[in-house]
């Protein structure tokens, strides 16, 4: 009976698919752990930078830098969209593209110029399909983005912002909140808001004792000068911040793929179960029919 053979064939192919999705899930799990470790290793640098900024603020330096100042008139807005190079990761790419396109339409109403850059083949394809012009594309970022490559993009953005070619830079990516929560967001990276001057300078004045203790601990010498260090701290923290976006996107992608592949594997399992049931039923009914035929034949003879 052709139906039985077809069912068996179908069941075999679903089994193969389940094998593939299970493997992909395992790979995504391994990559997720690696990406997580990288993201954790990267926090050391941000912590140290924050420390230096706090020391600078305590020494009474006026924290100002061209990257921190918002431009008076917002004419050009750059946007960077971080997506994955590969699909099969649930709604990961789709949701980033959705928020990005939405923000881009909002931008269009206020600013006429500005570049849109997209990282990841999926995002590039989605933007092409949506008919949105894209100036720059990157597809070299996989699950372990290298700082060198990110720094090049960051330096370019810094130059464009400082020379006044662009007045705001937005980044659309999937923010990693926890391993069970990742949200697609659009964040404004320039003018840079990542440097927070701690409020402790006023708090420490409240009690003289802590003040002197702090002074003893943090009486730093600045070479060449506090202002000279600040000049370098701001771009460095911006680069680190952008790198963090790439790392977050990479971690979120692996989680999304893990979840998608897990449910695909489960679904394949259910499908196999129901296919097996139909197959067995068909086989049994075929056997019964044959027996009936034989009995019928014997009765006719007798």
């Amino acid at each position, binding site marked *: 009976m052709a139906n039985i053979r077809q069912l068996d064939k179908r069941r075999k192919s679903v089994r193969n698919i389940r094998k593939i999705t299970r493997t992909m899930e395992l790979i995504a799990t391994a990559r997720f752990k690696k990406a997580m470790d990288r993201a954790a290793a990267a926090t*050391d640098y941000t912590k140290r*930078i924050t420390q230096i900024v706090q020391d600078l603020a305590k020494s009474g330096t006026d924290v100002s830098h061209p990257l921190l100042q918002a431009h008076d008139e917002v004419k050009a807005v750059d946007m960077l969209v971080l997506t994955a190079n590969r699909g099969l990761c649930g709604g990961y790419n789709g949701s980033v593209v959705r928020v990005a396109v939405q923000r881009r339409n909002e931008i269009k109403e206020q600013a006429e110029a500005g570049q849109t850059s997209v990282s990841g083949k999926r995002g590039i394809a989605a933007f092409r399909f949506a008919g949105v012009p894209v100036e720059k594309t990157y597809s070299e970022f996989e699950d372990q983005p290298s700082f060198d490559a990110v720094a090049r993009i960051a330096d370019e953005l810094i130059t464009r912002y400082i020379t006044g070619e662009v007045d705001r830079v937005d980044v659309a990516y999937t923010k990693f909140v926890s391993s069970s929560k990742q949200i697609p967001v659009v964040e404004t990276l320039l003018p840079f808001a990542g440097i927070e001057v701690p409020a402790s300078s006023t708090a420490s004045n409240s009690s003289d004792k802590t003040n002197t203790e702090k002074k003893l601990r943090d009486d730093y010498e600045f070479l060449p000068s506090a202002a000279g260090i600040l000049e370098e701290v701001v771009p460095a923290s911006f680069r680190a911040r952008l790198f963090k976006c790439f790392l977050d996107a990479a971690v979120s992608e692996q989680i999304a793929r893990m979840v998608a592949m897990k449910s695909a594997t489960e679904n394949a399992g259910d499908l196999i179960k129901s296919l097996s049931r139909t197959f067995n039923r068909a086989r049994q009914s075929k056997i019964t029919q044959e027996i009936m035929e034989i009995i019928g034949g014997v009765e006719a003879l007798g």
Partner: protein
Amino acid sequence: MSSGTGVHCVVVTPEKTELDTHCDSLILPLFDGELGILPGRSPMVGRLGFGLMKLKGAGKVEEWFVDGGFVQVTREAVYILTDRLLKPNQIDRATAEADLKKASEIRPATPEAFALRDRALAQARAKLRVGT
């Protein structure tokens, strides 16, 4: 930094903590010249330039290329924050040359753009100087 027997030196890049070691003394390429650090150095924060960092310890000198950043000397340790930490033989001369060419072609119009160009020039030149 404790005035013990050596200097605890930690090098942090945006990717990870590259180096966590103890040495007798170290020499750092600051923004405007070299700086030597001996055990017991008073706390300071310095801006790093591009060049060779030398770690002296156990009778030998270890050399690393640091790519800008900062040094923070605390009572506990010397923290070096740099974008990249490379062995001199890991430097990609071809890319450095391309960067130098690109940077020299920039015609800056504002003081900020001048500073950016100078930085790019200094970085590329230091790489070519140190790279083998």
